[in-house]
C-alpha cells in the first residue's frame, strides 16, 4: 500500500481522481492490477524503485531530452558572449595597462571610482546619452510621419518605401564617408546648396565646429535610420483596421486628433520595438564616428564606444577600457532588459 501511495503522490492529480473513482466503484479489487502495471514499468531492470524513479524522471524530463538542441548554442554563447563579458568585468577590476600581464590578485573598483573625475569620460557619457535620446526620438518622429504619409494609398508607395529604407542597408563606413563629403565646408553639398539659395549665413564647418559636430552626427544617423522606424510603423499602421479610422471620424475626430488619440496610441508596440533597435544602434555608432574622425573625435562628439576603443587599444589602458565597456554594456542592458521583460509579461517570449 505504501508503494502505491508513493506512486500516486508523485504522479499527480489525475491519478488521485482515478483512485477515488476506483475506490468508489469497487474498492480494492482493481488496486493490485494497477499496482502490478506501475510496478512493472518502474522496476524495469532495477531493485531500488525509489532512486530508480527519480533518475528516470530526470532522464525523461524535457530539459534532459532536449540537450542536443540547447547545449551546443548554450556552450558557444556561454563561452564567447557571457564568458567574455565576465572576463571583461574581471579585467575592469584590475589595474592592467601597457604590455604586462593582468594581475588578478588585487581586485578593486578603482577604475570606476575615477570615472566621475575624468572630464573625458563625463563628456563621452553625456554625448552618448544625448545621441541616444535625440537620435531615437527624432528618428521615431520622422519615421512615424513618413509612415502615415506613405500609408495614404499614394502612388509609387513601394518605390518610396524602398527609397526611405535603402540608407539602412548601407554600411556605416559608406555613410560616414558620404556624410563627411556632404559636410565639407567648402565643397560639401550642404554648404553649396545653402549658398546657392542665398542662405550663406547658415553655412558653417558642420563637423569641424565643436558646437555643431554632435548635431551633424545625429542628423546623418537619423537620415540613415528613420526609414527603419518608418517600416516598423507602417507595419503597425497596416495592422489597425480601417474601421478604427472611420469610427474615429464618425465620432468627431479631425485627422490630427484621430491620429493623436486613436492611431498613435495603438502603435505603442511598434514604438517600443523600433526604439529598442534604434537605441542599440545609437550605442553602437562607433563605426560611423570612427570612420569620420578616427579614434579621437574631440570632446564635443566623443561617445563611450569610441572612448573605450581609444583608451584600450591606443593608450593600452586595458583596465580602464574594460570599465568603460562595462558601463556601455550596462547601458545597453538597461535599454533591452525592460523590453524583454515587457515581451515576457505579454507572453511573446
Amino acid at each position, binding site marked *: 500500500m505504501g508503494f502505491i501511495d508513493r506512486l500516486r503522490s508523485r504522479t499527480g492529480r489525475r491519478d488521485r481522481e482515478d483512485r477515488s473513482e476506483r475506490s468508489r466503484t469497487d474498492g480494492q479489487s482493481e488496486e493490485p492490477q494497477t499496482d502490478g502495471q506501475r510496478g512493472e514499468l518502474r522496476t524495469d531492470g532495477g531493485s531500488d524503485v525509489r532512486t530508480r524513479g527519480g533518475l528516470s524522471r530526470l532522464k525523461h524530463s524535457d530539459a534532459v531530452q532536449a540537450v542536443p538542441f540547447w547545449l551546443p548554442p548554450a556552450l558557444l554563447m556561454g563561452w564567447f558572449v557571457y564568458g567574455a563579458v565576465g572576463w571583461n568585468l574581471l579585467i575592469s577590476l584590475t589595474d592592467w595597462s601597457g604590455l604586462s600581464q593582468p594581475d588578478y590578485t588585487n581586485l578593486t573598483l578603482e577604475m570606476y571610482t575615477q570615472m566621475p573625475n575624468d572630464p573625458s569620460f563625463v563628456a563621452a557619457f553625456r554625448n552618448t546619452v544625448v545621441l541616444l535620446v535625440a537620435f531615437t526620438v527624432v528618428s521615431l518622429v520622422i519615421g512615424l510621419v513618413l509612415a502615415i504619409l506613405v500609408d495614404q494609398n499614394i502612388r509609387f508607395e513601394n518605390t518610396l518605401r524602398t527609397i526611405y529604407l535603402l540608407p539602412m542597408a548601407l554600411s556605416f563606413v559608406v555613410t560616414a564617408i558620404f556624410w563627411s563629403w556632404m559636410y565639407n565646408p567648402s565643397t560639401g553639398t550642404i554648404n553649396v546648396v545653402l549658398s546657392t539659395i542665398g542662405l550663406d549665413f547658415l553655412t558653417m564647418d558642420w563637423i569641424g565646429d565643436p558646437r555643431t559636430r554632435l548635431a551633424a552626427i545625429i542628423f546623418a544617423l537619423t537620415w540613415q535610420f528613420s526609414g527603419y522606424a518608418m517600416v516598423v510603423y507602417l507595419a503597425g499602421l497596416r495592422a489597425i483596421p480601417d474601421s*478604427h479610422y*472611420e*469610427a474615429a471620424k*464618425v465620432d*468627431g*475626430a479631425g485627422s490630427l486628433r484621430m491620429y493623436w488619440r486613436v492611431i498613435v496610441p495603438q502603435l505603442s508596440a511598434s514604438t517600443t520595438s523600433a526604439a529598442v533597435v534604434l537605441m542599440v544602434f545609437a550605442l553602437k555608432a562607433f563605426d560611423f564616428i570612427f570612420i569620420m574622425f578616427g579614434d579621437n573625435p574631440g570632446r564635443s562628439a566623443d561617445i563611450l564606444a569610441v572612448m573605450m576603443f581609444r583608451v584600450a587599444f591606443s593608450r593600452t589602458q586595458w583596465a580602464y577600457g574594460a570599465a568603460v565597456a562595462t558601463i556601455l554594456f550596462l547601458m545597453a542592458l538597461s535599454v533591452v532588459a525592460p523590453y524583454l521583460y515587457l515581451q515576457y509579461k505579454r507572453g511573446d517570449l
Partner: protein
Amino acid sequence: MARVTLDNVTKRYDDVVAVDDMNVEIEDGEFICLVGPSGCGKSTTMETIAGLTKPTEGTITVGETDVTNLPPKDRGVSMVFQNIALFPHMDVYENVSFGLRLRKYDKDEIDRRVEQAAEIVQLEGMLDREPTELSGGQQQRVAIARAIVREPAVFLMDEPLANLDAKLRVHMRTELQRLHKQLDTTIIYVTHDQAEAMTMSDRIAVINAGELQQIAPPLTCYNEPANRFVAGFIGSPSMNFVEGELTETGLVTDHFDLEFDVDGLDLETGSEVTMGVRPEDIYPAATAESLSSSSAVIDATTDVLEPMGDEIFVYLSLEDSQTATMTTEEASSASNQLLMSVDPDSTIEEDERVSVVLDRSKIHLFETRSGDALVHGIEDVTTAARGEATDRRAHAEIDSGGRSE
C-alpha cells in the same frame, strides 16, 4: 431624429460603378435595411451617408441639411461597424465617451450620458473593463453604446451582427429592435442576410449591382417582388424559377403547362416568361383540396429530403432521369428541379413518384429578359381588370425606382 434622402447618388471607382443613381427617401424614425449580396454597393451607399466616401454625383440630405460635402463629424450620424472597432487602448468608459470628450462636453454631462447609454445596452458595472476582457456580444453592446451616447439623428449599422455566432446574432436582433422602439431614431442597417432584413426592418431596400431593386415593407418584398432578383434574394430557401414561353392559353415550360388568361398581360404570345413559385406554395396533389385555385397536376420524382423539424424540404426532379444532387441554390435556378416544403408529418420518401400542384394565387411571372415582375398570382389575370391593376402596380414599383406605398 431626421429624414434621410438620397438623390441620384452615384459612386464610381475608376471604371467600376459601385452605386448607380440611387434614390431613397428614409422617413424619420424608420428602421430600414439595405440588403443585397456582397459587393452590391450597400456598404458604399452607407459610407456615402456617413460621409466616409464622397459620392461622385448626387446629394444626400439628413433632416433639412444637405450634408453631401460635410465631414462625418458634422452630419449628426453615428455608426456601428461590422468588426466592432472598439479602440483597444481605451476602456469601455473611454470608448463610449470618446465622441463626447472630443466635443468637449463637461464631465458631469459625459458621465450622465455614458451611464444612460450603458443602462440601455445593459452594460452597467462594466465601464472600467478593457475591450479585450469582454465577450463578442458585450463588445458589440459597447459599440452600440458608443453610437447612442451622442444622441445622433441617424444610426448607421454596417453588418453589426455578422461577426457574432448564430445564437447571439438572433438574440442581438431582438435587442436592436427593442432599442429602436426605445430610441425611436432613424436606423439604416446594412446586411447581406435577408432573414435579418425581414425580421427587423420597417422597409427593406434590396440592392443589386449598385442599383436599387425594390424598397418596400418586408412582406411586400416577399409577396410582391418587383423583379426576379428580389424574388430570388428574399426568402429562404429561395423561390423556384421555371423558364417558359407565353402562348395564347398560358405558359408552356419544358415539363408542365400553366393555363391562364393571357389578355391581362401586356406581352405578345411567344414572349419568354419565367414562372416563380415559393417552396411553400407547392403542395402534394393529395392535400391540395384546400386551395382555391390550384394548377394542373405536375408529375415529379422526389430526390433528396431535408427534414427541418417544422417542415421538410423536398427536392423534386421533373425529369425521369435522376439528376445529381443539387444544393438549394442550384435547385432553385435549375428549370428541371423544384423545391417543395411539406408538412413534417407527411409520409414522403426519397425517389418516389409524386404528383404536386402549385397554388395559382402565389405564382409570380417575370419577363425573362428584363427580369421585371409581370404579375403576382395568376388567378388574378383571369379577371382582366384586376390583372391590369396588379400589372400596373408591379411596373409602377420598378419605374419609380422602387418606391412603394
